[in-house]
């Protein structure tokens, strides 16, 4: 059987679900990955993102929905015949084979001529910059080098789609940054599509063309990094994208948006979509009208809550952490709620600070935010 994924234009997941004995690990995930695109599956641990990746790979059977490569259905095809490359979280290098034989494995499987294998393995080694380590065993390599071997092994067969399962989670912070740039460089160089699983929002923002946020096995939002960062569709996506301040409030109609009460002060905000409604494709995140007094959840990033001399909110600093370029502070509003802010000027515990936020950076979601962990913590 020929490898089915050659020269595809798009990989399409159509309402893909996966159950594990009654629990829904993945529910109705729909996604299209265009050729050349870098898509990140982002979510907290246990959200089903690895399950989704394994379903695409064929290592897990889907229990509902279909997966298509252009017009060809592949969800019943075994992993051997999909021809996708995969980089595993623990690398899964063959411990008994040298770097060269590990990388050449896929080519040997394809019964390529010896000379071609040697040439292409050498090319792959050059791409991941592992020259001089060809004859070592995986056990003799550092974590970062093992990672490079895993990437080389996946790309040497020139797969149109590369799947990566948290490939950087076993590396230290410095190496992670280095390999992150490397992964993006290799992706651009090869022109393949990449589906990248991670729980690190920073990693997803910096690498991906598009991000799919999965929470509890369901799609919460699909969008560009800019979309997700500036306009999270729901409070739990906002929580995941670093909106540390998630506070319950009541809506009041106001000119140009909606007004809410935060820390005992009135604040203008931007209305966002329904927080607990189903993810219904394009309608997600659309502004909705509010009735006066309707319960809402307000999301503000710590860096958007700026200490300003004439700011409306008055709060007492409880904890102030020095972060080098700024201070990160936990404050208590006059109504007793906890607030998080960043400040470039020095602040100390016990200080009373006045805070302000721009209306476009104050996101207001309908509902009381039940189900959003951050909202409960902050009250």
């Amino acid at each position, binding site marked *: 059987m020929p490898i089915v994924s050659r020269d595809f234009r798009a990989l399409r997941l159509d309402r893909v679900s996966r159950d594990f004995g009654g629990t829904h690990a993945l529910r109705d995930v729909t996604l299209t990955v265009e050729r050349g695109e870098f898509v990140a599956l982002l979510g907290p641990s246990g959200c089903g993102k690895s399950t989704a990746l394994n379903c695409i790979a064929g290592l897990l059977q889907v229990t509902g929905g279909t997966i298509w490569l252009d017009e060809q259905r592949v969800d019943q095809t075994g992993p051997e015949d999909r021809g996708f490359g995969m980089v595993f979280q623990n690398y899964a290098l063959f411990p*008994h084979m040298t770097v060269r034989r590990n990388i050449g494995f896929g080519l040997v499987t394809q019964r390529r001529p010896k000379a071609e294998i040697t040439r292409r393995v050498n090319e792959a080694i050059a791409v991941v910059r592992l020259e001089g380590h060809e004859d070592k065993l995986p056990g003799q390599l550092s974590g970062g080098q093992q990672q490079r071997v895993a990437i080389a092994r996946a790309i040497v067969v020139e797969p149109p789609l590369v799947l990566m399962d948290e490939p950087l989670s076993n590396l230290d912070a410095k190496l992670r940054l280095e390999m992150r740039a490397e992964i993006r460089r290799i992706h651009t160089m090869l022109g393949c599509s990449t589906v990248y699983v991670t729980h690190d929002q920073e990693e997803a923002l910096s690498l991906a063309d598009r991000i799919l946020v999965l929470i509890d096995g369901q799609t919460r939002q699909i969008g560009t990094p800019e979309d997700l960062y500036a306009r999270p569709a729901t409070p739990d996506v906002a929580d995941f994208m670093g909106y540390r301040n998630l506070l319950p409030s009541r809506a009041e109609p106001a000119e140009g948006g909606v007004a809410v009460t935060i820390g005992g002060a009135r604040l203008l905000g931007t209305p966002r979509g329904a927080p607990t409604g189903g993810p219904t494709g394009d309608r997600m995140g659309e502004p909705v009208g509010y009735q006066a007094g309707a319960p809402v959840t307000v999301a503000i990033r710590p860096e958007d809550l700026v200490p300003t001399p004439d700011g409306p909110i008055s709060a007492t600093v409880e904890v102030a952490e020095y972060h080098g370029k700024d201070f990160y502070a936990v404050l208590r509003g006059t109504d007793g709620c906890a607030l998080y802010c960043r400040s470039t000027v020095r602040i100390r515990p016990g200080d009373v600070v006045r805070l302000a936020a721009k209306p476009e950076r104050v996101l207001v979601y309908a509902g009381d935010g039940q189900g959003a962990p951050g909202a409960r913590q902050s009250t």
Partner: protein
Amino acid sequence: MTPSQFTLRQRLRERGLDGVTLLVIPGVVFVLALFIYPFLYGLFLSFTPQVGGWLANYAKFFSEPFLYDTISITLWIAIPATLLNTVLSVPVALRVRLMKHQRLLTTILVIPITLGTVMVAEGLLTYLGPRGWLNRTLLELGLADNPVRLIHNYWGVMLSLVITGFPFTFLLTLSYVTGIDPALEQAGAMLGARARERFLRILLPLLAPGLAITLALAFVQAFTVFPSAILLGAPAGPTRVISIVAYQAAFEQYDYSLASAIAMLMAGVQVLIIVGLLGARTLLFRGPVSTGKG
């Protein structure tokens, strides 16, 4: 406590010697009293024959076909039984690894170990005998004209060795198989390798060192076969294994010296085979079978 004592203790601890090390003493005494001493005593005894020079026992063994043939007879039983058990246990272990009710199945497979050879032999005598279930079924169904002879010959001993030896090789193999990271096979599949290729190129090379140990241990068990060779075999003919002649020398001819010499030769054959197996193992990969964080 003086400072010098303190440093001695610290120095010992550096080399891994501390109070806990004393716990090996009972084990060492046990090994010395029940293994080293009897072995050396037997070795000494084998060189003090009832008649003739100090090598007379060994000369006698290798001059009488009745005696030296037992080595090939025993190998002819032990080697096929060992290979069969090990080869069978690999696919079973690979399958059991993926099962949900692994413990239940493992328990069922391991029961023959707890029964002991004699009980298995008794059971087989009844079950496989001329008037046993098997032969009666075959005769009733017209699948055989005469009862099939499966006891009191080579096959009886072989069956008994498989039944009692398999759980042992299976347990060992299962532990080696479960030590292999399942992601390795998945990685092989993602690179286009089918089940057969994944087994030959990934699993088997990683299992080989473990299989060498399994073969060695299973061989020792099979080579020392005694009760089933008498109960289920033909102890005067095709299953006159080496342990039977050692027994006869010791307890029928009361020639402890000759019996010791035979026991030493048994040990010698086993050591040769095991050294060969473990020597072959060093040619194979011996590192860890999973690559984690570097």
